[in-house]
C-alpha cells in the first residue's frame, strides 16, 4: 500500500513536470537570445567599453552621467512629444473611424479596412523613404499640392524646418499607427451586444452618445492594449527618425534610441549606450505597468457594477 501510494505520488510529481518539459525548448531559445543579452547589457552598463578593447569597470558613473547628458534629456523630451503622435492621435482617429465603420453599412468596407491597415504592415524604412519624398521641398507632392491650391505660404522644408520637423515625423507615425488601433477596435466592437445600440436608438441617443456610452466602455480592453503598444512604440522610436531626419535639424528630433545608436556605433561608447538602453527599458516597463494596472482596475470596477 505504502509503496504504491509513494509510486503514485512520484508519478504525479513527474506528470506535473511534463508541461515544463514542453516549455523548455522555447525557454532555452528565449534565454539564449533574449534573457542573456539583456543581462549582458545590464552588466555592460557599469563599464566603460569601446566595443573592442578591454572594458573598464566604471561603477555608477554612466548612470550619473545620464542625469546631466543634454542629448539624453533632449531625446527623452522628444520621445514624450512623440506620444502625442503615436498614441493620442491614432487612438482618437481610430475611435472615430470605428464608430463610422461599424454603425453604417458602407459598400466595399473590407477594402477600406485593409487599406487603412496597410501602413502598419509596411516596413518602417519603406514608409520613411516614401514620406521623405512626399515632404521633399524641391519635388515632393506636398509642397506642390499646397502651391496648386494657393497655399504657398504654408510650404516649407518640412523635415529640415526647426518647428515643423517633429510634427512632420510624428504625422508619419500617426499614419502608421491608426490602422492598427482601428482593426483592434473593430474586432472589439463585434463582441458588443447589438441590442444595446438598438435600445439606445429607441431612447433617442445620438451617434456621439452611443460612442461615448456603449462603444468606448465596450472596447476598454482593446483601448488599453492599443495604449500600451503605441506608448512603447513612441518610447523606442528609432527607424523612422533614422531614415527621415537622423535626429535633425539640430537636435529637434533626437530620441533616446538614436542617441544610444550613436554612442554604440559612432562614438564607440558601448558601455554608455548600454546604460541608455537599460534606462529606456526600465522607463518603458514602469510606464507599461502603470498603464496596465490602471486599465485593469477599471475593468474590475465594471464587473462589480
Amino acid at each position, binding site marked *: 500500500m505504502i509503496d504504491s501510494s509513494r509510486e503514485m505520488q512520484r508519478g504525479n510529481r513527474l506528470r506535473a513536470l511534463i508541461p515544463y518539459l514542453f516549455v523548455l525548448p522555447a525557454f532555452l531559445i528565449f534565454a539564449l537570445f533574449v534573457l542573456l543579452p539583456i543581462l549582458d547589457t545590464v552588466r555592460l552598463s557599469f563599464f566603460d567599453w*569601446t566595443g*573592442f578593447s578591454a572594458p573598464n569597470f566604471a561603477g555608477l558613473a554612466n548612470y550619473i552621467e545620464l542625469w546631466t547628458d543634454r542629448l539624453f534629456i533632449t531625446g527623452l523630451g522628444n520621445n514624450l512629444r512623440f506620444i502625442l503622435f503615436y498614441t493620442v492621435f491614432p487612438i482618437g482617429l481610430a475611435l472615430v473611424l470605428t464608430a463610422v465603420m461599424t454603425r453604417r453599412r458602407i459598400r466595399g468596407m473590407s477594402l477600406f479596412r485593409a487599406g487603412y491597415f496597410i501602413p502598419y504592415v509596411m516596413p518602417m524604412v519603406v514608409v520613411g523613404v516614401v514620406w521623405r519624398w512626399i515632404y521633399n521641398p524641391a*519635388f515632393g507632392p506636398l509642397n506642390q499640392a499646397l502651391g496648386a491650391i494657393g497655399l504657398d505660404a504654408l510650404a516649407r522644408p518640412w*523635415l*529640415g524646418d526647426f518647428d515643423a520637423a517633429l510634427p512632420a515625423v510624428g504625422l508619419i507615425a500617426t499614419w502608421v499607427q491608426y490602422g492598427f488601433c482601428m482593426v483592434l477596435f473593430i474586432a472589439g466592437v463585434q463582441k458588443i451586444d447589438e441590442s444595446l445600440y438598438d435600445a439606445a436608438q429607441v431612447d433617442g441617443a445620438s451617434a456621439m452618445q452611443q460612442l461615448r456610452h456603449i462603444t468606448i466602455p465596450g472596447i476598454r480592453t482593446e483601448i488599453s492594449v492599443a495604449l500600451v503598444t503605441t506608448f512603447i512604440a513612441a518610447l523606442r522610436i528609432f527607424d523612422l527618425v533614422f531614415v527621415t531626419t537622423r535626429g535633425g*535639424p539640430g537636435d529637434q528630433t533626437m530620441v533616446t534610441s538614436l542617441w544610444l545608436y*550613436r554612442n554604440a556605433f559612432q562614438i564607440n561608447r558601448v558601455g554608455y549606450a548600454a546604460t541608455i538602453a537599460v534606462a529606456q527599458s526600465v522607463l518603458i516597463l514602469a510606464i507599461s505597468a502603470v498603464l496596465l494596472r490602471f486599465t485593469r482596475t477599471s475593468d474590475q470596477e465594471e464587473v462589480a457594477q
Partner: protein
Amino acid sequence: MFKKQSVVLTLSLVAVIALGMFAAPLAAQGNTTLVVWDNLVRPEESAIMDALIARFEEAHPGVTVARTAKSTDDLKATTALALSSPDGPDVAMVNQGQSDMGALVAAGLLEPLDDYAEQFGWFEHFPAGLASLQRWTPDGMQMGEGDFYGIPIQAELVGVYYRTDLFEQYGLSIPTTLAEFEAAMATLAEAGETPLVFGNLDAWPGIHLYSEIQNAELASREWYDQFMFTTGEVDFDIPENIAAAARLQEWIANGWLLKGFEGIGYDDAWQLFSAGTGAMLLTGSWLSGELLPGPHGADIGFFVLPALEEDGFKLTVGGTGYDFSIRAGSPNVDLAAEYINYLYSEETAQALLDAGFLPVYPVDTSTLEDGLVKDIVLGWNHLNSTDSVGYYMDWVTPTMYDTITASLQELMAGRVTPEEFVDVVNADYVAFLLEKGVR
C-alpha cells in the same frame, strides 16, 4: 534491412569525413579566399571594383576574392566587431581619424604596413603629408606618429561643379577670388537661376560647405594643422571661423542656396543638379563618375573654390577616400598586402580615371581630354603642388561629427549667431583636449 541501411550510412559518413580531411589541405594550398570589405556601393564605382578584382584573380590563380560592399554607415557600425573576429575580413576599408583608425589601432586590430610599404615602394608616390594621416601611436591617441596602417586608392577634393553652358549664357568665367565667386552667384540669382545646389537634410554636407568658406577666410594652413593634430595650441573660437559662419548665413539670406535645402537630402540634391537644376554644386570629386553619364554630363566642369585674394593661399577640403587596411592576425597577410598593392598601382589608377574617378596614384594627364575629369585631376594636382590638401574637420574629436552637424543646422536656420556657433564647437574641442591631457 535496418542493418544494411546503417552500414551504408556509416560507410558514406566515413567517406565524407575522409574526403573532407583530404579536401581541407587541398583547399589551403590551391584555393585561398581573400575576404575584402569596402564601401564602394555606388553603381559606377562598384562595377570598377568588380572588374579590378576579376583581373587580380586572373593574375593569381587559385585565389578567390570575396568582396562585400557596405554603405559607409553600415561599414562603420560593423567593422570594429568584424575585425576583432578570427573569421573577419582580411582587408577592410577604414576611415581616418580618432574614432575610426585611431580606435582600431588602440585595440590592436590592424596590421602595421610599414614593411610592405617599403617592399612595394608605396612611398615613392604617396605624399608624406597624406601618409601622416595613416600613422598612429600604439595607444591610438596621436595621429602622424608611429606605424603606417592603411593606404587609400581614391583621392578626393571638395570643389564646385558648374554648368559650362550656363556660365557661357550669363557671361561668367571661373572665379579667381571668393568675391568673384559671390558675384557670379549674385548674377545667377538675379537671372532667376539657383546659384548653388545644396541639400542639408543629411546634415553632413554642411560641414563641407562651411569648411570651404572657412578655408578661404583662414588663408593659411598653420591653424588647421594645429587644430586637427589636437596639439592643444589652438582654439576654434577665432575671428576667421566666426567670419566664415557669418558669410554662410549671408549666402543663405541672399537666397543663393537651393530653396528648401534644409529639407533636401544629399542624394536628392546632386540628382537635381544632374537633371538640370541650378548652375553650381559644391561637393566632392567622388561624384564625377555619377554626374558624367547624366543628361548634362558633357556641360559640367569643376573648379576649386577660390581664395580670398587672387593667387592667395587656401586649403581645400579633401584628402583621400577610406584606407585599405589589413586585419591583425589575418592568415593571408601577404596576399592581402599584394591585393592592396594591386589597388595602389598605375593599372588601377588608370581604370579609375577612365571611369571618371580620381586616383591617389599619380597619373599621366597629358592624354586627358578636356572636360570634367581633367578639371578634377588638374585641381588635385594643384592642391598637391601647393601643399594645400585640407581636412574633414568632423573627425577631429570622436563627438565632433554630432556637434558640428547639429550646430551648423542651427547656424543655417539663424537660430544661433556665428559667435554662439563657434562657442559650441569650441566647447566640444576643448573637452577633448582636456581628456587627451594636452590642456
